């Protein structure tokens, strides 16, 4: 029975320090409460003849003291927890993006090089990794206790989760949001490799075409090219009568929307425009794009997103 959970990610040790502080504070409070209780039980039991003396009337000072004390301790814990959470919330730029699709009772993982895995995730040690996750049915939750991280995976939306693995090894992957019959079978393994081993693994499993290549094929098959042009450079050329926004150079750049706000086109924006086009309509264009929700599977959307991202080569991947 291993009572110590390995700390294998950069933030894991920080979370452990916070948990240790919480343990110490809880321990102190419990010792105080139990000690006082036992002392009163023994000293002031009915049969003891001990002279009780005057009972304190003015309780303001004492009440005020422990109220302020608890407020200060709690505020400290809040700041500590919130600061770490904010850092865990936003992935650093240039992190290695790996796509994860949760499906009722399995994890499907896709690397940008086209490698595919079921219920396992190979990744390099020492480098910031950003998981871009979505679900094909109910809400799941990608949880790796050894990295002290978890995040719900919502259907029809991209959720991001980032971490940096510090120690090679194999770690548990659990689904921690109840998702039906085989929720407990939806487990997997995270295999952390040293960068050379990871590179070897990539070549060895890189059989299928890259995401962009397959995305280009799907771009034609699903008819996106019909409106957005053969290579996505805008819809008002000769062969298409429909005005559709150009997709070249879209990824990473600002997109002015019809309601006046400006959004930076990330995976989420591209995914949402395919599934729910009327949420964020580009300024100056009529909301005529039909929703592809249900027609294109999440895996194909991933490939389309990868292809559209490849149309903006000058920006970092």
């Amino acid at each position, binding site marked *: 029975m291993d009572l110590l959970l390995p700390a294998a990610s950069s933030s894991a040790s920080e979370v452990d320090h916070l948990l240790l502080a919480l343990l110490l504070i809880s321990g102190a409070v419990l010792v105080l409460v139990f000690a006082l209780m036992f002392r009163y039980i023994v000293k002031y039991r009915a049969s003891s003849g001990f002279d009780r003396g005057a009972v304190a009337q003015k309780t303001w000072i004492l009440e005020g003291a422990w109220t302020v004390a608890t407020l200060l301790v709690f505020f400290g814990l809040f700041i500590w927890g919130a600061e770490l959470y904010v850092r865990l919330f*936003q*992935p650093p*730029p240039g992190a290695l993006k790996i796509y994860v699709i949760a499906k009722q009772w399995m994890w499907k993982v896709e690397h940008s090089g086209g490698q595919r895995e079921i219920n396992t995730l190979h990744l390099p040690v020492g480098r910031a990794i950003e998981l871009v996750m979505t679900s094909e049915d109910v809400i799941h939750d990608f949880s790796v206790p050894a990295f002290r991280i978890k995040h719900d995976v919502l259907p029809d939306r991209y959720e*991001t989760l980032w971490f940096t693995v510090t120690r090679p090894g194999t770690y548990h992957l659990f689904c921690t949001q109840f998702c039906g019959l085989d929720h407990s079978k939806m487990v997997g393994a995270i295999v952390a490799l040293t960068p050379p081993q990871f590179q070897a693994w990539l070549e060895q499993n890189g059989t299928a075409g890259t995401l962009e290549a397959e995305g280009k094929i799907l771009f034609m098959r699903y008819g996106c090219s019909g409106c957005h042009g053969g290579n996505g450079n805008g819809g008002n050329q000769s062969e298409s009568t429909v005005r559709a926004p150009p997709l070249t150079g879209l990824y990473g*750049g600002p997109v002015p929307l019809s*309601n006046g706000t400006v959004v*930076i086109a*990330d995976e*989420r924006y591209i995914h949402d425009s395919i599934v729910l086009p009327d949420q964020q309509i580009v300024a100056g264009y009529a909301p005529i794009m039909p929703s592809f929700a249900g027609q294109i599977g999440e895996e194909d959307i991933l490939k389309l997103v990868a292809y559209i991202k490849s149309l903006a080569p000058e920006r*970092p991947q």
Partner: protein
Amino acid sequence: MWHPIARLRSRPGGASDDPQDQEQAVHAQLNRLLRAWLLLVLLGGAEFAVSFLPLARPLRPLVMIPGVLMVVTVTVAFMELRRGPVLVRAFAVAAMLWLLVLLSLGSADPLTRTEFHVPNVQVK
């Protein structure tokens, strides 16, 4: 047997006996109610008119302001918020406060959800 220690009970609207006074009282009431009804109709018209102003889409909910005033009018005039035990006003205020908590804290999440999800990609 009951000890007449004063407890929170205000006098009910004493209807005096002679009919002349009653007739008088009723017409005063009816006029008050009629004025409230007129105010409601005016506010309804105002709301209807305001809805045709070209407001930007996120500002559209401002059309609700006359509606809220109509709600206040109905509560004060027809439901007699200001008469009866203090408890009545306490419950009305509690309902509004808790509704406000549900709607404000409830919409804090969607209104602020998109901003933080965009990765800070360097724009050329």
